């Protein structure tokens, strides 16, 4: 810098620059010097020194040029010196700013590399809870039926034989009782009647109709019990949702329409439905209700060839029993069988959940292993 410093300390006259040409050469020399020094400003400290050396108000190079070259310049040179100075100033300021930006960017890079989060690491894991899958499936069923005007009712799990059997048109020694092996309670000596664990949610049909007159539309979720030895498809406790609709104008067509609506909502609109005649003492006509197999889309064949393992090649899956309420049942609740009609159904919640989620062992529902519970958030 020494030559530039010494030159800017002198006037142009002292430098023998009375013509524009030597002035241009002087400015070119200063500018070359600046560009050479700029490269040396490699961090914040050296950059500040560099900036002050050139732009410092008291003794910066540009101030020196203004004071020593421009101000004393002869009137004929002043314009040329002024223009050259402005050009130099613009260059110096732009370069110093650019240098600052470059230095800051480099500093940020270092810091950010240290601070940058590793997105492959987990966040803070707070414990979260979950609904049991049986509950989730029931809520889905409840949502579907609430939309079409079915209220929710409930009833006791410990029942009298009257509600569980007799009032549902299942007298003692009816052969259907053989299919519903029943748990009975041990009661103190002298108890007037028996108590049992309900084998279906149907007793709540009777309890509901005893309490209200038609129109009736209810669904009844709950636990039911059958004295079956436990295995992959049997649990001596499982869950049903009973449905009951009674009114003055309900026909079989309303019944199938309601069930079809439910199945389309639950399994999807592409699922086909089928009703097969069956027998239950408390419905007539009674049906078993089938849906087209959701695993093979009703084709009966598995994707890899061979029979579909879920529907055993039938293309249909048996879902639940249902039917028009048997007029004998109305006799137990003082409804006029000649004036009202209705339908009832009993959906197995566990079975629907097993079908929908491909669960092959009913026991896992009730073991409550957290690894199972976690799968249904």
């Amino acid at each position, binding site marked *: 810098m020494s030559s530039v410093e010494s030159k800017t300390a002198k006037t142009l006259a002292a430098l023998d620059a009375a013509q524009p040409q030597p002035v241009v050469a002087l400015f070119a020399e200063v500018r070359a010097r600046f560009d050479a020094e700029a490269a040396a400003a490699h961090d914040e400290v050296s950059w500040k020194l560099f900036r002050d050396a050139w732009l410092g108000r008291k003794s910066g190079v540009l101030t020196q040029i203004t004071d020593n070259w421009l101000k004393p310049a002869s009137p004929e040179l002043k314009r040329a010196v002024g223009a050259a100075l402005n050009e130099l100033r613009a260059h110096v300021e732009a370069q110093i700013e650019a240098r600052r930006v470059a230095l800051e960017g480099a500093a940020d890079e270092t810091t950010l590399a240290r601070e940058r989060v590793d997105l492959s690491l987990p966040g803070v894991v707070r414990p979260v809870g979950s609904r049991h899958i049986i509950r989730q499936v029931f809520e889905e069923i409840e949502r579907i039926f609430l939309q079409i*005007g079915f209220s929710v009712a409930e009833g006791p799990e*410990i029942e009298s034989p009257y509600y569980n059997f007799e009032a549902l048109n299942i007298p003692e020694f009816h052969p259907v009782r053989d299919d519903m092996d029943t748990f009975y309670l041990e009661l103190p000596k002298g108890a007037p009647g028996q108590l049992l664990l309900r084998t279906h949610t149907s007793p709540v049909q009777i309890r509901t109709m005893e309490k209200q007159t038609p129109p009736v539309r209810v669904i009844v979720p709950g636990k039911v019990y059958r004295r079956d030895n436990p295995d992959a498809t049997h649990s001596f406790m499982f869950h049903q949702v009973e449905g009951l609709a009674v009114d003055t104008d309900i026909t079989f067509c309303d019944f*199938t329409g309601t069930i079809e609506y439910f199945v389309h909502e639950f399994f999807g609109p592409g699922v086909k439905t089928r009703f097969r005649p069956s027998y239950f003492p408390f419905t007539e006509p009674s049906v078993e209700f089938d849906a087209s197999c959701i695993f093979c889309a009703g084709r009966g064949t598995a994707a890899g060839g061979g029979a579909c393992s879920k529907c055993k090649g039938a293309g249909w899956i048996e879902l639940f029993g249902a039917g028009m309420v048997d007029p004998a049942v109305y006799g137990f609740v003082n409804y006029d069988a000649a004036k009202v009609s209705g339908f009832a159904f009993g959906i197995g919640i566990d079975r629907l959940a097993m079908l929908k989620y491909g669960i092959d062992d009913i026991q896992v529902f009730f073991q409550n292993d957290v690894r199972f519970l976690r799968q249904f958030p």
Partner: protein
Amino acid sequence: MKVVYNWLKEFVDLTAPAEDAASRLALSGTNIGGIEQGAQGAVIEAELTTNRPDCLGHYGLARELSAIYRLPLKPVAPKPAESAAKAVGAVRVEIQSPELCGRFTARVIRGVKIQPSPAWLRERLEAAGVASINNVVDATNYVMLELGHALHAFDYDLVRDHRIVVRQAKPGEKMKTLDGLERQLTPGICMVCDGDGTRAVGIGGIMGGTETEISFSTKNVLLECAWFEPVAIRRATRFLRLYTEASTRFGRGADPELAELASRRCAELILQLAGGELLAGVVDAYPGKRAPKKIALHRSEFLRIMGVDVPDKEIEAILAALGFAPVRVDAQRGAAGSLLAAWECAQPSWRAEVEREIDLIEEVARIYGLDKFPPRFPVARKAAARLPHAAAEERLRERLMGLGYREIVTIPHVAEERNELFRPAEATPARLANPLSEEAGVLRSTAAVTMAAALEWNLNHGQRSARLFEIGRHYRLQGQQSVETRVLALGATGEAREKGIYDAARAFSFADLKGDLDAAGAFAGGFRWQPEGGAWLHPARCGRVFLGAQELGVAGQLARRVAERLKLRQDVFLAELLLDPLYVAMRAAGDARRFVPLPRFPAVERDFSLLLADGTSFAAVARVIQSLGIAEASSIEAADLFRGKNVPAGKYSLLVRVLFQSPTSTLTEAQITDFSGKIVATLEKQLGAQLRAG
């Protein structure tokens, strides 16, 4: 029942493949388990509902197919050659219990040759799943499978006096049945006896006895074909735990009219297979003959139930094919499709369960095809309502899930021994009279017992941290009544916070359980805690939970004694609360909730580091501060607690943080100093508290 398709073809000229027939049967009420191809052709597994005993023979299913395909059903009219000698002279029958046995026919075949059955018979029986025994016994089984009516063959010469007496069993009576077991009998069971009626030779409608059994030395056969009362048969089978092909058929209701025909058919077959001569006629005691029933069907009723009409011709063809002999009886006879159309039908003897108009409606609908009734969407006339407590239950469930608890569902059957560990003394357990096992002998008296089992399952399966809840019921007896109570169970074990990249691990403690319960209790205006808990809880780490004066339940760490019995090797925390009062309080608190304006002036915090004697509770400190009546003391909190270093034995250090705030002004330093001084002085005086430096 295994149905040999070729056998059906003997009665109906079926041309459809077996698969088609099976599918049509399935869609008209006969459940089909599957089809297999064998030496005898297709065998269909038919799963019959209990109301259709008439289909427990091939002829009954042939009748179904004749109605489905509109093909004629061939009559069964056996005409076996008879000898000059009459059956009446060779055997006598007396029914002493007509309430148990409505009909008893007897035929006698003399000079038979008992031998193995020919191949065609053995193979057909085998295809139908029945083992071949000898030609005469096979003949009875063949007719049972063909017509659906069970028969029994006696060795005529072993029947004393050639006389049959039908009576009910005597108290304490015993007999040895064909399966070689001695059976204990009871009155109400129908016995077939011989001679003077003292010796039983068979349990009517269920199983014969060994003493008059057909053997290879049998020369003469007495053929029984009877009808037994279904309810009595079902009682008897349940009492004896003896279920046979015969008892299934009689127990569901056989056709009394068919008895004589089935006997004749069987005699024909015996003559064909074993030779001999059939004595003329039949000895037929028939006290239970039923008058034929008439049933009406109205189109208006059909429409009311089914919603869509069926043409006259279809109705009549279906009912006729099923044997109901419909006759139009309304005034508009001849007007096809009349809404006033009515038919009078005759109940066939094989369809005793069809008695009412609704039964006929079902018959027409199921054969006509349920798919012909188009689905329609019914209109609701009332708003739907959820259960009264549904909203409260949902809020509670959401809160618990937010606190990290997973919902479980349990089977309430537990071992009595386990139930006893948790049962409050005042609760009477609800025991089962017929449990499947001791392990499931009683319904839980508390939901804590099943929650402990769920934690135990997880610990035994390597899941060391779990937070679970159940919304369910517990079951108790009150005198002769059952009481089911809605309860919430909480269970937790392992770590409240797992060790991770950012946090150290922290074990779940009583404070976690209390905090979580209080977070739920906030919905109901807050729980109140009182010392002590159930006997199954750790005496120093438990509490009773109250809402006002109502006790909801207990919470705490499982007592070590109980944990050891359950082989739980880490601390387990449990709670059980009554839900109904909680739901009521949640609704009430929700209704009463009002906005409190936010404070406009700043609050000032003061910490008091106190040295207190063990046993002096935070509540006591708070009470003393509150007793000063400083309105500006807007909250009193415990901020820190420790024992040990620098704290003398028998004492502990508690940091109490008091927040001062005025709704009307900013508090001055002088006011705060004044409040603080009063607080310290009073705590020192009333609780012996010492203010610690710093």
